[in-house]
């Protein structure tokens, strides 16, 4: 199952993936342990003439053990998740690269600052469904929707954030590898939900400059 995760091209993705692997190993071991015991018991203790079941109502020591061990493992897992969660969702790094995404049935509208250098003004430069960003630079997104809830999902960036009408939600990612990555909507948003998607283009700094000169600067003039 491990090889099924899409390639990770973000700065924080490996932390998410290693938590995933850790939980995978723990739950996998538990699954095998319980299943093997169950099958062994079913064979060992099948009904046979002349043998009577053990008359036992339980064993307090055992029960305490199998309460405490899972409790400790689960609480440790929770604490291990706290820092990654904070990094991804709570601590948006300082950056001068900010984009605005307005979701609507059934498009992502991506805005870049216009000549005034500010987002959310009349001269913003807008693209439908496509987002172009440089590699190795934290990208801050301000997400909002005009109609229903959508969810901005970049599988390769391990990025997902619901986009809620009436709210500006800030989120971020940082790409580590240039390429073209799919950008689907992950929250049911109506009959056109399936197929509501765009592309994220991650460029080397040179390629980004080339793209920006062509698409942002031209309109700036």
């Amino acid at each position, binding site marked *: *199952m491990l090889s099924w995760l899409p390639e990770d091209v973000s700065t924080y993705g490996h932390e998410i993936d290693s938590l995933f692997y850790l939980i995978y190993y723990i739950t996998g071991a538990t*699954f095998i342990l*319980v*299943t093997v015991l169950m099958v062994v018991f079913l064979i060992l203790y099948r009904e046979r003439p002349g043998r009577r079941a*053990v008359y036992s109502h339980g064993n307090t020591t055992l029960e305490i053990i199998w309460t405490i061990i899972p409790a400790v493992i689960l609480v440790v897992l929770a604490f291990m998740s706290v820092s990654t969660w904070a990094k991804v969702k*709570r601590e948006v790094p300082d950056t001068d690269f900010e984009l605005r995404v307005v979701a609507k049935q059934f498009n992502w509208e991506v805005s870049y600052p216009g000549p005034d250098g500010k987002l959310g003004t009349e001269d913003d430069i807008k693209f439908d469904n496509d987002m172009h960003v440089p590699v190795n630079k934290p990208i801050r997104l301000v997400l909002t929707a005009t109609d229903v809830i959508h969810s901005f999902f970049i599988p390769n960036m391990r990025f997902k954030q619901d986009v809620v009408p009436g709210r500006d939600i800030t989120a971020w990612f940082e790409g580590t590898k240039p390429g073209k990555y799919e950008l*689907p909507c992950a929250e049911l948003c109506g*009959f056109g939900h399936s*197929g509501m998607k765009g592309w994220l283009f991650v460029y080397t700094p040179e390629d980004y400059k080339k793209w920006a000169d062509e698409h942002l600067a031209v309109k700036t003039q």
Partner: protein
Amino acid sequence: MSDTAAAHALHEQHHELGFIRTYIFSTDHKMIGRQFLFMGLLMIIVGGLLAMLVRWQLAWPETPVPGMTFIPEPYMYEGIIPPQTYNAIFTMHATIMIFFVVMPIMVGTFGNFLIPLMIGTGDMAFPKLNMLSFWVGALATVVMLASFFVPGGPAAGGWTSYATLAAKAQYTGVEWGQHLWIISLLILGVSSLMGSINYITTIVNMRAPGMSYFRMPLTIWSLFITAILLLLALPVLTAALAMLLFDRVAGTSFFLPEGGGEPLLWQHMFWFFGHPEVYILVLPAMGVTSDVLSTFSRKPIFGYHAMAFSMIAIAFLSWIVWGHHMFVSGMNPLLGTAFMMTTMVIAVPSAIKVFNWLGTLWGGSIRLTSPMLFALGFVSNFLIGGLSGIFMASTPVDIFIHDTYYIVAHFHYVVAGIVFALFAAVYYWFPKMFGRKMNEPMAKIHFVLTYIFFNGAFFPMHFLGVGGHMRRIYNPMQYEFLMPMQHWNVFITVSALLLGASQIFFLVNFIWSLFAGKKAEKNPWQANTLEWSAPTPPPHGNFEVQPVVYRGPYEYSSPEVKEDWLPQDRDLGAGAAARAH
């Protein structure tokens, strides 16, 4: 009193009721239980067929579904499912399976049938309220089914009906379908409230002499806790549904930002109900499984008190975990951290239950009857569903797997896994319910096929989810990154179709056994609980004499008696009773 006089007196008490009072407007808890069973089984066919349509579309997108050409445009085009219809299909599949299959059968059927019989009383505390509860539930079912036939089709906003999608007709294009969806669930809430009040009152007040709380079978414990959860959770859903309906028809803006409302409020209210709801569905399955495992291991349940207290713990914790459905919803991420902690903690009592079931098998004398096989199947599925839940409990991992097929796999292992407990319960109590036995070899074939194809249908969904496959999408072929995984969608669909086909073994067995099954004796499984002391099938009023309870429900293989079972109401005499304490 002479025999004839006694018979005469009995006849006076139970004068013959007409057909309508016996079979339709019955106040007998056993008949109401059967009515819920038939309604639930009818609806599982509807819900199951809808699932087949979903699967067809995902495996072979936009190809004609065989046999569906009779559906007119624009709902289908020569058997091809359009996106709007697809959304309606999965919305109704989930709604029907949760509210009209698992709830009526696990809670309605077995709650009604078993509570008076297992606690040793003649009927429910409020028999007329009980009848009303069924008929109000039937009305809700009719309203929900009617929504298939209104212009625009049924609700298409997902079973979660998130605002703002479901709060304005223009967003889904569904007007009356969504109205009826809301109205049906409002009505169903009334039915469930009446039922839960009845269950709680009956269990608190009407237990047989000697039936202390900690001598109750775990099935009764689970139904008791379920009823309390229902009583407290449903008003929240009812309030939310009323607000949603007002937003749709009365111009209010509880959930619409343009009027100052808040879309996330719906999610908070829905999941504040919705998470206890999951336990409302699964607790009775756990109770039934405990009873069946103990009976067929011929061994007392391992850690009876831990089993009861872990259910109580689950009930309390279920109120403070709802936010784990909303980690990426835009809710304050700090809250996400808090909900992750509570969610990790609620996994502990579930783990205790699985280990105690294993402990029950240990040292037993295991009889692999059909109810036992299905109960073991439930444990196996619950194990997978429980463990996969830990992934999404971890907030960072949830960022990736939220709203993917990983979630679909997880909740099917838990909720569709409950159907294994449902079958275990039907096979186990069928002799008491209908006075006849089901065909055992056919039941075993049913188990083997169901178990194999269930796993074939739901396990590969984990792979899809880890690959990023979103849930609720109409056509996976629209996404380049999903195309290499399409063969799994085909595999899942073939398994699901076979899973559906395997249920014919149950249907045929059930109907055939109803009319022509072998007559069942009073206690065919040699079980301890009180329902097996009542005649088969139990008459109106249940017991010939008021049973008195001397011991707990799981005294199998007790050294006090030669046989390996010791019914709760068998009086061993003063000396033996003293030794037992």
